[in-house]
């Protein structure tokens, strides 16, 4: 088995009668972008929640960097280098853009127990934060309150925070959602470069982006994996066309 950075083994999760994950096993390899696609309600976000630790699977395992992390809380996985973006932005609205990114850097530094020093004067944290803002093109907005950002700008900030975490793997839940055409194009190019830093597990409905980026695609329908393969395989798969892509793609 080629060594995978992140993998799940036979994950099962049910909400009452609804089976949101049924034996999901996927792997994220070094240097790749692995896209998860599937109809709405297929269980993509549920899968991500289990990978990141905010939801506990009924059975099955999650392995990250060769270690079984199924029992670890979210923050421990994050400290190991698992960075995520949220489908609905989770940002501190009352803080500035800079503060939101600084938080990411602070989390990564693992030293939050400093009570009397100025966080904004910590050169290490600042550098990480500024670099992340620069990469996402938000450097000019650093001093704005996050509440003042437009929807699209907030989506970019989500990515910026993940960048500060010195990640070993990214898990992104619909980072393109809400970005305009221009923004999507920009982000597509950016993710393309990002994969060399750490592999990306990408949930996305923007097929243009997915087809442009993904090394491999897994298709989830009703909690089950119905296909995994390269872009060409998936495009050609009649099952996938029927369940998800429709005739447009």
């Amino acid at each position, binding site marked *: 088995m080629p060594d995978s950075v992140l993998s799940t083994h036979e994950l099962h999760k049910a909400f009452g009668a609804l089976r949101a994950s049924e034996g999901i096993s996927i792997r994220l390899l070094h240097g790749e972008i692995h896209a998860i696609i599937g109809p709405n309600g297929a269980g993509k976000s549920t899968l991500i929640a289990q990978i990141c630790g905010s939801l506990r699977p009924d059975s099955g395992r999650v392995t990250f960097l060769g270690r079984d992390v199924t029992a670890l809380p*979210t923050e421990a996985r994050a*400290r190991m280098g698992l960075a995520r973006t949220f489908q609905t932005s989770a940002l501190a609205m009352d803080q500035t853009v800079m503060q939101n990114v600084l938080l990411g850097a*602070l989390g990564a530094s693992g030293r939050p127990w400093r009570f009397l020093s100025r966080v904004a004067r910590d050169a290490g944290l600042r550098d990480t934060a500024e670099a992340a803002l620069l990469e996402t093109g938000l450097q000019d907005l650093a001093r704005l309150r996050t509440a003042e950002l437009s929807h699209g700008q907030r989506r970019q900030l989500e990515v910026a925070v993940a960048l500060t975490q010195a990640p070993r793997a990214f898990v992104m839940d619909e980072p393109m959602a809400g970005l305009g055409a221009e923004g999507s194009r920009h982000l597509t190019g950016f993710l393309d470069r990002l994969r060399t830093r750490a592999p990306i597990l990408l949930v996305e409905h923007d097929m243009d982006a997915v087809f442009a980026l993904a090394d491999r695609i897994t298709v989830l329908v009703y909690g089950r994996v119905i296909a995994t393969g390269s872009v060409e395989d998936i495009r050609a798969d009649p099952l996938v066309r029927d369940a998800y892509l429709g005739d447009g793609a």
Partner: protein
Amino acid sequence: MNREWLLNAALLAGLVVVPGWAVWADEPFTIMLATRAVIFALAAAGLNIALGLGGLVSLGHAVFFGIGGYAMGVLASHAQNYTPLYDGVFTIQGTKSMPVIWLAAAVTSGLAAWLIGVLSLRTSGAYFIMITLAFGQMAYFFAISWPAYGGEDGLSIYVRNGFPGLNTLDPIQFYGLCLAWLCLVLWGYARLRRSPFGLALDSARQVPDRVRAVGLDPRRLQLVALVLSGAVTGLAGALFADLNRFVSPSMLSWQMSGEIIVFVIIGGVARLFGPVAGAVFYVMMEHWLGGISDYWQIFLGLVLLAVVLFGRGGLIGMICGKGRPDA
């Protein structure tokens, strides 16, 4: 921002000038009132750490205030009666020394905050308010019916405790001690707010999911905030007990918790000087309105109502405008 800075400076100056004037004019009662206000401000500044920075609306801060008070009462009463506090494997004597009492007050109330926090931080929002209230009520009823230290009658310490080099019975000297503590805590608060911990705590208040996702545990951050908060309020409790030379379960009552919260809210939540403005205002209102009529609390109610309705973010917000002042 600048305006707030000016207001803070004015408040601080007032806290120095007015008692100074009172010494000159021989108005010991004014000093007493100022001491009361400063101690309440200290208690509220403690709460402001949990409430303003951490978003933890604790309706049980009287527990810490009271524990601080009882730490003083218990230690001093044992010293007064020459009976050991604990006589077992080793012996603990009572004491009339303020520094030791302060340490004991801060440590015991911090411990209590840790215990309550571990249990309460599983909840949030209104549930957190109520579970802290529940712990407050438990402590209150326990203190009322526990006979060892006077029960509801409380505990009188006839003479104020001592501080090396000072005559604490002199009102202005005791006031100076209290003011020094307040300044120290406000300085700490100002630093804390901009510190790495402050940032993490503020984020834990707004977006706990995000904090987890970057590898921090929001509950532990909040627990530490609560412990700091409880310790400061406990310290204020010890000073308050010393001011009155008396401690009773009324320091543990939910009304007391309510008042501490009120100080913070009327002053301005999360404002550096919010607790100070709130406590000073409240004590002044209580004093001035008290003479108007038997029904003076109606006026107090109306004044408080006016502050809420017309001032966003409390008195400081009313004067200096809205917004969280950091960044």
